[in-house]
C-alpha cells in the first residue's frame, strides 16, 4: 500500500517534469515571449489577487451589477486551464468562449481577438509551461442577478460586437506604428476603457479612444487631438507617463491607469513604448467642442491671500477639535499643501506633482480630481512607488467638494464646480448606465425579448475594486 503510494507519487513527479523541463526546441524563448505578451495584455491585473498566487484568480472585479470574480488561469488541471488545448485556449482568449461556457466581457476578448496566431501560441506555452499550477479555486464565486446571470446570452452579443480577426504575425513585429496599433488595440486593450460606449455598451468607434467614464474615474481622451487629446504631449511625456505614470507638467496616473502602469506598461520595452506613441499620433482626433485649451495649459496659479491663510484661528479646544470646515482654502492648506505646496507648484523634483499644468485640474471634467482626493494614489513604477493618501475617511462630501473647487479655481479650470452630491455619486462609481438601471425591470416585463441580452455588456464598465491590505 505504502509502496504503491510512493510509486504513484514517483509517477506524478515524472509526469510533472515535462512542465518545467526546458526543452531544446525553443520552448524557453517561447515562454519568455509569452510572458512578455501576458505583461502587455495585463493578464495578471485581474487574474492575480493582490497578495495571492500568480494567476490563481480571485480578484474581485466590481461592476454596477455585482461582483465578477476573475478565474484561475494557472495550469492546474483541476482548478485552472491545465486541460485546455491550444485551440480551446485561443477560443477563450479571442472569442470569449471557454470550454465551460461563455465568458463575461470583463475579459477583454473583443480586443484580444486581434492577437496573432504566433502570439497565441507563445501565450499558451507560457501559461502551460512557464507558470505554476495553483491547485485551489478562488474563494469567492461570481454571482450576478438575473438576467445577467445567464452567460449564454453573451452569445448573441458576441455575434454583433465580437468579430475581430487575428492580426497577421508579420505585421506585429517590433518597431513602427503598426506594432503600436497591435499593442494599443489588441494587447493593452486601451480602448476597453478609453473609448466611450453606445447604448448596447459596445465601443463607439466614431469616438475611438475619445475618453470614457468608468467606476467614477474618467479614462481621458488619448487621441491625437492637440486640445482634447494628447496631441500636445511630447514623445517623452507619453513614454514617461506609460513607464512611470507621470508626465511632469501634464498628468499623473491614478485609479485603473495606475494599475495598468504598475502591472503592464512599465514592463514594456522602450521600443514598444515608442511604437505606442507612434500609433497614438495617428489616431483620428476627437475634439470636445466645449474645450478650448489643453488641460495642462493652466500654468499660473491665482494668487493666494497670504494674510488670510495665516490668520489666527479660534484656539478654543472645541474649535481645535472640530474638523468639519468647508472652507476650501483652509482644507487645502491643512490637507494638501504639505505636498502640493501653497501655490500648487508641487515639489521641485515633481515627486509631489504640480496641480497647475495638470490635466486633472485644468481639463474639461473634475471627476479624476475628486476621485484622486477620495481614493488616493498607489502606483508602483520603475522609478519608485508613488502614494497619495485617500481622504475619504478624513473629509466628508462637502469638504471634498470644497477643496476640489478651491483647487479648480486657483490652479485650473475655474469654470467647473463640484457639489457634495457629485462627490457622493462618484463614490458610488459614477452614474449607472441605462442598462444597469433598467435591464431587470425590462426583462421581467418581457419587453426585452431577443435584443435584451445585448445589454449585458454592462460588465465592460467593470470597475476594479481597490485592493485592501
Amino acid at each position, binding site marked *: 500500500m505504502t509502496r504503491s503510494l510512493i510509486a504513484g507519487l514517483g509517477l506524478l513527479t515524472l509526469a510533472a517534469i515535462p512542465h518545467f523541463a526546458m526543452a531544446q526546441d525553443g520552448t524557453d524563448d517561447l515562454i519568455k515571449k509569452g510572458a512578455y505578451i501576458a505583461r502587455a495584455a495585463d493578464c495578471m491585473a485581474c487574474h492575480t489577487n493582490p497578495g495571492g498566487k500568480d494567476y490563481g484568480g480571485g480578484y474581485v472585479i466590481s461592476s454596477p451589477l455585482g461582483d465578477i470574480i476573475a478565474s484561475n488561469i494557472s495550469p492546474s488541471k483541476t482548478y485552472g486551464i491545465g486541460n485546455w488545448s491550444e485551440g480551446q485556449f485561443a477560443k477563450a482568449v479571442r472569442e470569449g468562449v471557454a470550454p465551460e461556457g461563455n465568458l463575461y466581457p470583463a475579459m477583454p476578448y473583443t480586443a484580444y481577438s486581434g492577437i496573432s496566431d504566433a502570439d497565441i501560441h507563445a501565450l499558451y506555452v507560457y501559461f502551460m509551461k512557464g507558470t505554476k499550477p495553483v491547485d485551489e479555486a478562488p474563494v469567492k464565486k461570481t454571482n450576478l442577478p438575473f438576467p445577467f446571470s445567464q452567460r449564454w446570452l453573451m452569445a448573441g452579443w458576441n455575434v454583433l460586437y465580437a468579430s475581430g480577426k487575428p492580426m497577421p504575425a508579420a505585421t506585429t513585429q517590433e518597431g513602427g506604428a503598426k506594432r503600436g496599433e497591435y499593442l494599443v488595440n489588441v494587447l493593452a486593450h486601451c480602448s476597453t476603457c478609453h473609448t466611450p460606449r453606445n447604448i448596447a455598451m459596445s465601443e463607439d468607434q466614431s469616438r475611438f479612444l475619445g475618453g470614457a467614464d468608468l467606476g467614477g474615474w474618467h479614462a481621458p481622451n488619448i487621441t491625437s487631438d492637440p486640445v482634447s487629446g494628447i496631441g500636445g504631449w511630447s514623445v517623452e511625456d507619453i513614454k514617461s507617463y506609460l513607464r512611470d505614470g507621470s508626465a511632469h507638467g501634464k498628468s499623473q496616473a491614478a485609479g485603473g491607469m495606475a494599475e495598468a502602469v504598475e502591472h503592464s506598461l512599465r514592463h514594456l520595452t522602450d521600443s514598444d513604448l515608442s511604437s505606442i506613441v507612434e500609433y497614438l499620433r495617428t489616431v483620428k482626433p476627437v475634439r470636445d467642442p466645449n474645450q478650448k485649451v489643453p488641460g495642462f495649459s493652466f500654468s499660473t496659479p491665482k494668487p493666494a491671500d497670504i494674510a488670510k491663510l*495665516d*490668520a*489666527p*484661528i479660534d*484656539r478654543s*479646544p*472645541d474649535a*481645535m*477639535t*472640530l*474638523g468639519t*470646515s468647508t472652507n476650501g482654502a*483652509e*482644507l487645502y*492648506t*491643512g*490637507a494638501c499643501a*504639505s*505636498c502640493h505646496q501653497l501655490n500648487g507648484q508641487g*515639489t521641485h523634483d515633481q*515627486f*509631489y506633482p504640480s496641480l497647475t499644468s495638470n490635466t486633472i485640474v485644468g481639463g474639461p471634467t473634475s471627476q479624476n480630481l475628486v476621485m484622486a482626493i477620495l481614493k*488616493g494614489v*498607489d502606483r508602483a513604477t520603475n522609478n519608485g*512607488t508613488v*502614494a*497619495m*493618501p*485617500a481622504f475619504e*475617511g*478624513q*473629509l466628508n462630501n462637502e469638504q471634498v467638494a470644497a477643496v476640489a473647487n478651491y483647487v479648480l479655481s486657483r490652479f485650473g479650470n475655474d469654470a467647473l464646480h463640484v457639489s457634495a452630491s457629485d462627490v457622493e455619486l462618484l463614490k458610488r462609481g459614477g452614474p449607472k448606465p441605462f442598462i444597469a438601471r433598467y435591464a431587470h425591470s425590462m426583462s421581467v416585463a418581457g419587453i426585452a425579448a431577443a435584443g435584451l441580452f445585448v445589454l449585458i455588456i454592462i460588465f465592460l464598465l467593470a470597475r476594479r475594486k481597490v485592493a485592501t*491590505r
Partner: protein
Amino acid sequence: MTTQYDADVIVVGSGAVGSNAAYELLKQGKSVIVLESGKWIPRWKIVENFRSSPRKGNHNDPYPNQPWAPTSFSPDYIENTGNFKFLPGMLRLVGGTTWHWAAATWRFLPNDMKLRTLYGVGRDWPISYDELEPYYGRAEFNLGVAGSDTQDQSGQGGAGQFPHRSTPYPVPPEAETYYFQRLKARLAPEGFNFIHEPNARTNQPWDGRPGCSGNNNCMPVCPIGAMYSGDVHAKHVVKMGGKVIEDATVYKLEKGSDGKIVAAHYRTSDHKDIRLTARYFIIAANGLETPKLLLMSDVANSSDQVGRNLMDHTGMGLQFLADEPLWPGRGQVQQGGIFNWRDGEFRREHSAIKHALTNTVPNRAITQHLLSQGIVGPELDEKIKDWAARWVDISSVFELLPNPENRIQPSAIRKDALGIPTMTIHYNTDDYIERGAVKAKADYAKFVQTMGGTVINDNTGWQNRDHIMGTVIMGNDAKTSVVDKDCRSWDHSNLFMATTGVIPACGVVNPTLTGVAFAIRAADIIAKEV
C-alpha cells in the same frame, strides 16, 4: 441562563497600544469596544492647528486641551512633589500620544530583560527576548517599521544582526542624511558605534500611509501621515466592525463578587455616566492614566505596586556648532545615534546611555537662543544662516532603576472638570543615572573636540523624555508586581494592562514598540479564553 455582555472585550484607550490590541482581537473574531476620553480629529485640522500656532516648540499645542479631557500640559493637571518635574507630553484624542512621537521603534535587548541577574541592579523581566520576539515582528509589521536587518543594535560593534529576528523589517531603512554621514565619518574612528534607528516613519507606502517626504515635522504632527500614529489602527478597528466610543473617560472599573472585573464606568463631557460590561478588560490608557484608574477603582493593587516604580529615560542634551556645515534638518527628525553604552558590565555601576542625534530643523532653537543673547538685525540673520548649517544636537537618555518611591497617584484634593482626580507625581532622579551622566559628559567633550566644535549648551540638566514605564510593573511574583508576563493582573484574571507601564527594567530605548508587542501577545491570550 447566560450573561449578556456589551462586548467580549473592552479596551480603555485608543492609542497605538490599545488600538493594536483591539485590532488583533477583531482579527480573531471577537467583539470589541474601545473607550477614548478624547475625540476623533482629522489630520488636516491638527496640521492647521500647528501651522497657525506661534508656539511651534510646544508639542502639545496643536492638540485640544479640554477641561474634560486634559492633556498633561493642562495647568495643574500634574502636581510634582519630587526633585524632578515629571511632565511628559500626553495627549487625549483618538490615536493617543503617538500623534506626536518621533516613531522610534526599537526592540529591547535580551540583556535588558535580565538586568538583575546579569548586573545585580534593578529588576528582571519575567519574559525572555525569545518569547517576545514573534510579537515584536507582528508589532513591526502593523506599524510598518523601517529598519536595518544587518546591524548589531546593542552598539557593541558586532558584525551582524543583533538581537536575533525571525522576520525581516517590513520596510528597508531610509537613506542616511548628510548630517548623519558626516558625524559618523568623523566620530566613528574615535570608537563611537553609530546605529540606525528603526522607526515607524515608513519610507514607502504602507497600509494606506504614504512614504515619508522629509517634512521634518514628526513632532508635533506628521502632516502627511507617513509616520505611524495610533489612529491608523483605531480606523481599522472601526472598519472591522469594532466600536470606538469617543468622549468616554473611564473613571471606575467595577469588581464582581468572583474577583473578576465586571464593568467599566465612563463619563461624557456633559456628565453622563455609562456602565459597560465585558468578559475581559484591557487598560491601555498609558503609563500614568492606567495606574491612576486602577488606584481610583481600588483594583489590581494587592502588591501595593500600582503607580510605583515610575521610570522615564530621564535625559540631558548637548548643542554645539561643528567646524563644518552639516545641514541638519533634512529628512526625518532623528535617524539613530551612538550606542556604545547600551550594554555591558558597566551596568553594575552606572546606567546605560543612548546618545541620539537630533535632526530637527534648528532655526527656531537657534533664533530663540540668539534673541536671548540680545542679537538682532543683520547680525541675527547672518548667525541664523551660519549656525543652522553647523548645529549639532545630541539628545541622551539614561536607564533609571525602578524605585517604589517614584510614583503616580490620583490627587487627593484636585479634580478635573468631570470631577475625576488629577494626578500627583513624585519622581526623584537617582545616583545610578548621575554616575551615567559623568560618562555622558566625557563623551560630550570628545564629540565637541573631534568635530572642532563650539559649545552652545553642554549643561542642560535633567530633561523629560516621555517614556513612561514601571507603573503597572510586570513580574514573576504577585507580591511584588502588578501583572504577570502575559500583562494579566495578578488579582483579576480578566483584567490586562496594555501599556509601556508594564516594563520592569527600562533600558535606553523608546518603549512603544514593546508596549504594542505585549498588547498583541495579550490579545492572543485573551482571544483563546473569550
